[in-house]
């Protein structure tokens, strides 16, 4: 596969380190640290199966939270308290150590566009206005299993690793709970479990998918809002779905996290949204937080060697 993906070259074993397009040491270093478009290869899997991922089509999400429960049942994630939030039907709050799937609920006033009317024109208080339409968005969030995963980059213990399927997993028998990964995640996915101290997040059901089973959430999802499969195939399917929705008048439909050119190299779990990502609590332009690390290291190395050279020069000068 590496032949089809020139960017992989930097870290793929057996491939010359300087085979990247730029042919510069800087590019090679970047790829070595951040991985590439084919993360399993970047993580040293010479022979690896296709990258697997999630496509969450929020346009058919019914907010049932089967994903949340199926995930907890399979992964034995603890129930984490009774907390009525008053935020629509979301009493989960967000992703964390004890929530690996989270359904967001957004109640929205929308303009009444005559060509594409919302399903409910509420009217009511301030007379007929441009924002009299109403809609209720629901979306199941999950770890994005980034192509460039900062959590993995910063993990000092090797607890977080890249699987041969391209997913990112925290190994509970290795994790010491240092927590470096928590702020490193651009999406706020990881969390420390209270009373345990270790870090937990979605494993994309590594145990299940490594034997060809579906992840628990995708298997349960009543409306197929959560789809699991080969990432490239999911991306094609998602593009087709956006086209179909546009043709049906759902002009707001757009993909999020599907683009390998984005700040995290594309997500292994990407979404079809009906509004801007911020509306769903997703960062509009996520960046791998270790993006500047190679440059920083290079600068550090440059500064160190300059210092060293200066010191050496000083000593050399002193002898003279």
């Amino acid at each position: 596969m590496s032949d089809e993906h020139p960017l992989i070259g930097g870290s793929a074993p057996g491939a010359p380190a300087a085979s990247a397009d730029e042919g510069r040491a800087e590019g090679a270093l970047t790829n070595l640290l951040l991985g590439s478009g084919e993360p399993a290869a970047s993580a040293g899997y010479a022979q690896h199966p296709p990258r697997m991922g999630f496509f969450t089509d929020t346009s058919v999400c019914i907010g049932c939270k089967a994903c949340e429960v199926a995930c907890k049942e399979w992964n034995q994630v603890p129930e984490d308290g009774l907390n009525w939030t008053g935020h629509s039907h979301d009493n989960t709050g967000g992703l964390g150590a004890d929530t690996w799937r989270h359904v967001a609920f957004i109640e929205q006033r929308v303009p009444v566009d005559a060509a594409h009317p919302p399903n409910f024109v509420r009217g009511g208080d301030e007379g007929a206005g441009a924002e009299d339409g109403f809609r209720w968005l629901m979306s199941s969030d999950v770890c994005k299993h980034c192509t460039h995963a900062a959590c993995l980059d910063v993990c000092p213990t090797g607890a977080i690793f890249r699987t041969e399927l391209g997913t990112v997993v925290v190994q509970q028998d290795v994790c010491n709970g240092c927590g470096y990964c928590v702020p490193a995640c651009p999406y706020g996915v990881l969390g420390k479990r209270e009373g345990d101290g270790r870090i937990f997040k979605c494993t994309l059901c590594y145990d299940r998918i490594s034997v060809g089973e579906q992840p628990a959430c995708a298997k349960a999802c009543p409306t197929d809002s959560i789809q699991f499969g080969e990432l490239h195939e999911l991306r094609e399917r998602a593009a087709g779905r956006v086209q179909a929705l546009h043709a049906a008048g759902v002009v707001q439909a757009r993909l999020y996290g599907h683009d390998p050119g984005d700040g995290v190299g594309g997500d292994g779990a990407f979404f079809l949204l009906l509004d801007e990502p911020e509306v769903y609590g997703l960062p509009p332009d996520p960046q791998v937080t270790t993006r500047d690390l190679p440059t920083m290291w290079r600068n550090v190395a440059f500064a160190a060697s300059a210092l060293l050279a200066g010191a050496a020069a000083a000593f050399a000068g002193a002898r003279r």
Partner: protein
Amino acid sequence: MSPARLPSPTDWPVLRQLLGPDRLARGAAAQSPATRALRPRTLEADRVVGSVCPYCAVGCAQKVYVKDGRVTQIEGDPDAPHSRGRLCPKGSASLQLTTGPARERHVLYRRPHARAWERLELETAMDMVADKFVAARRAGWEWEREGLPTRRCMSIAALGGATLDNEENYLIKKLLTAAGVVQIENQARVCHSSTVVGLGTSFGRGASSTLPADLQNSDLIVLQGSNMAEAHPVAFQWVVEAKARGATVIHVDPHYSRTSALADLFVPLRTGTDIAFLGAVINHVLSSEADFREYVLAYTNAPTIVGAEFADADVDGLFSGFDADARSYDPASWQYDGAFAAAAAGQRDLESKIAHQHATGEPELDLTLEHPRCVWQILKRHYARYTPEMVERVCGVPQDVFARVCALFVANSGRERTTAFVHGVGWTQHTVGSQYIRAAAILQLLLGNMGRPGGGVMAMRGHASIQGSSDIPTLFDTLPGYIPMPQAHSHDTLADFLMSGVPRKGYWGNIGDYVVSLLKAWWGPAATAENEYCFQYLPRLTGSHGTYDTVMEQVAGTVQGYFLFGQNPAVGSANTRMQRLGMSKLDWLVVRDFSLIESATWWQDGPEIESGEMATEEIATEVFFFPAAAHTEKDGTFTNTQRMVQFHHKAQEPSDDRRSDLWFTYHLGRRIRERLAGSSEEMDRPLLDLTWDYPTEGEHEDPSAEAVLAEINGRNADGEPLSSYTQLQDDGSTACGCWIYCGCYAEGVNQTARRTPAREQNWTASEWAWAWPANRRILYNRASADPQGRPWSERKALVWWDGDKGEWTGYDTPDFDAGKPPDYRPPRGATGPAGIAGDEPFIMQADGRGWLFAPSGVADGPLPTHYEPQDSPVRNLLHGSQRNPARQVYEHEHNRYHPDPDEPGAEVFPYAVTTYRLTEHFTAGGMSRWTPYLAELQPEFFVEVSPELAAERGLEHAGWATVVSARGAVEARVLVTERMAPLQVDDRTLHQIGMPYHWGPNGYAKGDSMNELSSMSLDPSSHIQEVKALAVDIRPGRRPRGAARQQLVREYRERAGITALTGMRP
């Protein structure tokens, strides 16, 4: 990696990193031993057992994984054609439900006046219950009432069965009926009994005509009275599928729910006004002649002439035949001209009277539809006042929105296109519930949508086997297979019974075969032709003995013993205060459930204990709590919402004192019979002669569920299993426990356990499990073809006549005599199936036609008519009668009603309430409030109010509100949401409050119960309560504690001037 092996140096991460390709240790080199040893527990299982989800009636197929004799995982079965492997949050939590710590392990016993539970040996408890049963039966035995033989026992009652297996319901009904108990009820009464009346009288069978998977073939889906995406998420996948195929979805509901979010059009309407809305759609279809005329002429009773005595309900809202003193109708004047047509369901008791008064001629038809007394013209006149203007004023639906709905109905019906209705308890739980369903039935008949792909009325039922507990009823008014229970006043002999009440033509004409075979199944060799096959062993009814009548009997002190089989009336039934008051008058109460539900602990910590109205030590009721086995711990069948009977296999033995209801009922019956052995009392004969010898198996001596199922299926004189109800005889040579289930064990093979994968069959999936009747998946499918037997269109082909082969064929099992040609005409005077012509698709109906007009069977009129709910803030703008004049009401100081809207005091309760389910919870909460993974998703009781109402009443978002009715006061968190919107009704602004009803004071997620507010006021045909529409006041803040809570309610009653007479007028 084996843990016993010593780690090799090459396992060291550093070496792996340095020697392998993963130099940066980001992948393989970083894998820990635990990661490399990871195996999913589904692969580690010793056994995988086929099962069915125990929550709602979608009946999602499950796979139960078992390791070392214990269940380790439960998942959906991807082969299943109806659920496709998917599970909602409740189904996904069924592992925690069945294996979690919330389930009780031991029998608990509360002595009279005791303050606490104590432990009791299971065997001791069983003996005690058997002793009490025998004693209560003796004490409460009634040979006759008012001179009519009743042969029954009014001192024992039972409630529950919809969460149980069919086999369990069968044994409960069999044992209790033999014991003379008539007060046998279950959740089906309070959930969908009105569906049975509405669909049964209209089409012939009181169950859903179609299956959720067929919704994928719909061009328009109208969800009304159903919160399908929340209450039945896995079935909702077929609505999503239909949308993907281009269908339009409309949701008509008082409350914008997760179902509305996915609809193309949401139509908010005032709760309790659906008949006004549907009546106006009917009016639109009739007045614009947009009906499917060929279908209407051939398959409905539109051309039938009604007798001259019939007078329609117009200005005053009363049909002919109303008796104000008796608060009921004599339906004699609703009959066809010169003919008698008995109803296939509903109120069949009345008809025996009428039958004898009427000629037995053939109904007269006017195919021009011009005769002023033909049904078409009557219908047209009746609905003329149901105009778009009235929809706007009554329902609060703007006329332009209503016009869009009408246009969609018309555009998506006819030869090429079909529309489906989906309804749930949003339609059924009203004082006119049966008529809501009738209104939909009329519309579907006019538009030609019955019996066709993508058409029909999809009744979404709520419990795993609530359809089964209606078919094999733990209900007072029917015997298995919808045979009416005999009435004390009319049926003296078996011959009398068979001659009355049911249609002579069609398959009800063979009722003798069904009844005699049932009696043979129950009383075996003791049932002979000489003794009328023990027909006299059946106890007799005297009017209604529904669950609310039983409550009144309890309050009156008549009932000594009460069984609760997985039902929680102290939270789930209307007016929970009355429920608890009734239970406090019992001598003994048996509760069989997973956890200590409110109905088991009211004597200890119920609201009346807190308020001081009851004192624990003064309550004499003995309480037995028996922990129940889960669906994974027993064999048996559930019947889902599409009439599909699915077998679930036992995956593990129940531990400790947990037992199945099959075990409980069988061993209780065994003990009772042991105690009566040798009795020469005539009243004991039915119990002693009862066939009660089932093979037992396993460490607990569980009776064999398959053996019970085989009895339900039936056998011939040689003991061989029957394969069809057409084989049944009335000469005692066949025995069959439920005639409509005959065939489920054909050839001695358990057909309900079949699991042919979806990919190997078409969408009707006739090889997955088994559906009644006769494995037909879409009912009345003969109507998918024209009178000559050709599909109405290729696009909507389902079943058609193959002239070469001389048989009906198609994608589904034909719901018609396979060899009866379309041109068959019955000989004059023919009865039974031979009386149905080859072009009459409704084979259970007296005239083979769908009933636009119901000449019998519906207690409150032949045509649906808009009446306001019992407690409504709005006056009836369409008819003079404010409320359904024939509704059932109960006079009791704790069951007071609200004033009429134009009477002084009505302003005290100015807001309408609509109630509903949430995805995350299940019914009265017994299977979800104790389940942490579900409880955390919806942890508190809340009310949904609009920003406008919040402003009007000073309600603060996320704060507390107190809601008050004439019955009670509850507190809830306030969810201010734009999903609730004020309506413009009759020139004023009306606010509605949304209330989910799952909570109660026990369990992990606690809260007040909505049913503290509701009243006992019932639909007269089905005896279902009105809990989908009521009127209340709402105020900020928490409710008062202790005695002050009821003091607040009393203050409201006084302010509203409520007396015993308020709201009681017919």
